[in-house]
């Protein structure tokens, strides 16, 4: 070990001892503060606590915390439920429910309009509605009456 390295180690050791000495001195002094200073410090602390108000949050901005005693559920850092709630919140869920209601309503309206279109076509067609509820006519129309001709050939 060189002389220079030896000097550095001694220097650090002196610094550490000085630091420890200052630390001990301050701890000792805090216990020996005059009563009027302790009283003023206590008053200032109480005043600061009285003026402190936690930031107000709306219910959808709050994290969901399930009170299960000391389990990890109450710890928001490790709680996936809380994190998901924080990400999604109640507003998008409400929006999703409302969106689903809109889609169902829209589909129902579209179905009614489709039926109205078909009914209008039936009610204004060249043949009356009774023709469309007659399966015999539909068969006759689709096959051009061939069924009857075939039956005659077969001697039915």
């Amino acid at each position, binding site marked *: 070990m060189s002389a220079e390295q030896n000097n550095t180690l001694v220097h650090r050791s002196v610094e550490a001892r000085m630091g420890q000495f200052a630390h001990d001195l301050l701890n000792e002094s805090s216990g020996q503060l005059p009563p009027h200073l302790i009283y003023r410090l206590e008053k200032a602390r109480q005043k600061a606590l009285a003026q402190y108000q936690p930031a107000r949050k*709306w219910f*959808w*901005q709050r994290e969901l915390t399930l009170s299960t005693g000391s389990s990890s559920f109450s710890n928001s850092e490790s709680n996936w439920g809380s994190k998901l709630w924080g990400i999604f919140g109640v*507003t*998008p869920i*409400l*929006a*999703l429910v*409302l*969106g689903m*209601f*809109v889609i169902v*309503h*829209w589909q*129902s*309206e579209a*179905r*009614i*309009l*489709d*039926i*109205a279109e*078909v*009914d*209008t*076509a*039936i*009610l*204004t*067609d*060249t*043949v*009356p*509605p*009774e*023709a*469309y*509820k*007659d*399966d*015999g*006519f*539909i*068969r*006759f*129309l*689709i096959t*051009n*009456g061939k*069924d*009857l001709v075939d*039956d005659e050939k077969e001697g039915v």
Partner: protein
Amino acid sequence: MIFRQALSLACLFIRSTRYLVIASSLGLLVLSTSVQAQAWEQLSDTQKEVLTPLEEDWNSLSKDRQKKWVAIANRYPEMSESEQNTLQSRMSEWASLSQDERRVARDNYLLTAKVPAEKKAEAWKAYQQLSEEDKKRLAEKKAARTKPSAVTAPTLK
């Protein structure tokens, strides 16, 4: 200063509820464009005139059927005069059919939708000349050869 604070509060509120605002707007848009079921007294004069054949039974119709008839009445002004007369002459008969009969009629209409109108009219005229026995045989063949399908014409209760 107060205006700026109010503006920033409004921005904050909109930002936090933007999904709700978008969905609500969409909902209002859909509701405003949809056909509404109405009591007879609430119909417009034109709608009442078109739907006169249904006046007596109007209140006994389901909400969906009322909406459907209102939609038909809204199409009425776009029809030709002969179509308007045909429509009105057939409305009572159509409304008196059972739900199942209307479903069958819609199925059959969609099945023959591509057949030209003239051919349908000729076939109907020829079909009416057939004996009841022939009509029955044709109906039985139709029933025997119609495959049950999950896809049928939509119905209203």
